[in-house]
């Protein structure tokens, strides 16, 4: 049987050592730390990030400095078309080592693009690192807007950060007041339909996959999947960019949780796929 979280070389718990990154980033700040390290040490010359436009709307952006990366960090819980700017990064930005971060579906798109580079001849050779983030499901912008504005009663323009964990959606307002929560159950109708046929929870095709599940608060579980990811990670560790601790393989909140969530997503969505096939609806697999 295949591994529920895909192929990997190594798994660790880690968090950034830079206090500024830790403060601004979602959990352990792995993506931000990797990007900043890559940009400052010539391993990457540009990275694609999900920046926030007016009204907490995510827009893809090509960042080339530490400041640009830091201004965009944090999870957005809404669709951000990062793949759409990959070609721009290589063309008018003339970047040669592009860092890419995305949800599992975007990583699948990137990998497909690299396998069949018909319209991306010059582009695919210039991808330096692909980081995937764990994803159970995502919301379209109007979905998250309804949740935040109607259910949590916070205006989208006043949102500082959103987070999902412990069965709740947390909305942190900009004024620093306490987070407003919405139970996960109530968010289900607002999910993207396409997320219900997705069979990838842990970005199984990325170089490095990361997310909070499986590690204590403030730490991230990092799954290093291939040689490129391993080399990059080794350099980061040697430079002291990350502090690490062994991944908790035993207790309930550790690795078993990651495995359980991945299995749950696959089982649930496999059923949905079957249902759709029965109804004669299109499915991606």
């Amino acid at each position, binding site marked *: 049987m295949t591994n529920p979280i895909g192929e990997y070389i190594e798994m660790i718990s880690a968090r950034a050592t830079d206090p500024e990154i830790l403060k601004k980033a979602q959990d352990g700040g792995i993506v931000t730390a990797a990007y900043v390290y890559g940009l400052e040490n010539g391993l990457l010359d540009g990275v694609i990030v999900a920046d926030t436009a007016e009204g907490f709307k995510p827009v893809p952006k090509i960042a*080339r400095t530490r400041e640009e990366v830091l201004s965009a960090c944090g999870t957005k819980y809404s669709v951000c078309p990062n793949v759409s700017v990959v*070609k*721009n990064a290589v*063309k*008018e*930005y*003339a970047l040669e080592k592009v860092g890419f971060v995305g949800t599992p579906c975007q990583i699948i798109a990137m990998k497909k693009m690299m396998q069949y580079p018909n319209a991306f*001849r*010059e582009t695919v050779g210039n991808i330096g690192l692909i980081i995937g983030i764990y994803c159970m499901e995502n919301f379209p912008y109007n979905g998250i807007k309804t949740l935040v504005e109607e259910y949590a009663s916070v205006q989208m323009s006043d949102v500082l950060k959103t987070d999902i964990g412990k069965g709740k959606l947390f909305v942190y307002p900009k004024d620093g007041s306490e987070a407003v929560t919405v139970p996960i159950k109530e968010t289900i109708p607002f999910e993207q339909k396409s997320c219900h046929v997705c069979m990838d929870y842990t970005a199984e095709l990325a170089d490095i996959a990361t997310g909070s599940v499986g590690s204590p608060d403030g730490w991230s579980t990092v799954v290093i999947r291939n040689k490129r990811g391993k080399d990059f990670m080794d350099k980061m560790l040697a430079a002291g960019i990350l502090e690490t601790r062994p991944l908790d393989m035993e207790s309930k909140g550790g690795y078993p949780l990651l495995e359980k969530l991945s299995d749950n997503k696959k089982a649930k969505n496999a059923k949905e796929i079957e249902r759709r096939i029965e109804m004669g609806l299109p499915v991606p697999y």
Partner: protein
Amino acid sequence: MSKTIEIKPTTRHEGHTNLVLTVDDEGIVESGAYHSVTPVRGFEKFLCGKVAEFVPIAVSRFCGICPTAHATSAVEALERACGMEPTKDGLILRELTTIGNKMHSHPLHQFLIAPDYVPKDDYPEVVKRVQAMRKIGQYLVDTIGGEAIHPPNIKIGGMAKNITPEAKEKLIARAKEYFELATVQCDYMMNIFNEGKLNDGTEIPKTLGYHDFPLLATDLTYGNLSKFDYSQAVEYSPFEEYPKEIALVACTNIPKYKGSLVEVGPRARMVTFKDFKETKGALGIHKARALEMAHYAERALELLDELNTSGAPYCTDPVAGDGETVGVGAIEAARGHNVHSAIVGRDGRVVEYNAIVATTWNIPVIGRATVGHHYKFAEHVVRAYDPCVSCATHMIVKDYDGNTVGGKIFK
């Protein structure tokens, strides 16, 4: 007693052409007919009624070697038909793209003639240099045009995107690198051409490829419509130039400028704008082409220096004509003077479209230029012009059963 020699097909150039020569008892060519047999594709016909924005995308599919030249000629023609003024930076970016295209096309031709001229021992070195140069040329087009082949950024009103300052720095570095490579390559090829020998030791006759037709060029690197009078360009049918049996299969028009056939291309440009002395002969064209490469790099550096990376790349005027004004776009493609003309209606759709492309001008001249020398040199004359035929094809051709080839397109 003269006899006929046919070279079918001619090789090491783009497209399908035949060379039919009548030679005397000693093999000296008495008359030459070089003609295209690439089937007609009907671009000018099917573009009618399409929205003008589609034209640069379509015409760049004329060919994969110089898509930039066609797309640029098209947008120039359409802008004039619509009375639009492209932005300054858009024009700079556009010229850079066309230069990048020539920076790749010229070395490609030297790769094609290398088996004729370059000694076997030097071959790997020359080919590596040629490839390095082509890579830089294509990099320019790729970065500014959005794709190395069929660049999508060339649009009516300018270019779709400007580049970043970092990209500009990279392009400057590459253009400098190109300049050095081009200097080495040019010196190397010029030595060979000055010796006037093929790599098997055969001496090339000094007067090979001589003809008395005038030269036509409007600019060294881009195109200048003020130097070209479109009303003086007339296209005739192949029967004007070829004997009947050849005219029946020939697929190109015969364009004349001010009543005469003209030669276009590197030599025409170098003679008109750079005081190049050799006004005749096949080797003259080779030399002009070799010399041009460095000029392109110099001009690219000038343009990059001038480029404002935060300037508006295109103007936002509406794309609509008056249904009467003929817009003409004249661009110097790698192989010479390339003219597109268009009329755009009030609804922004193409009313009429026509293209007289570089090789169309040259095709009848090539056949004539083979006269007076042994037929074994004829293919070297053809190759000197670097014909690129698929874009030049225009005439309807009938097959052996009398049916029009590709007739569906015209119905």
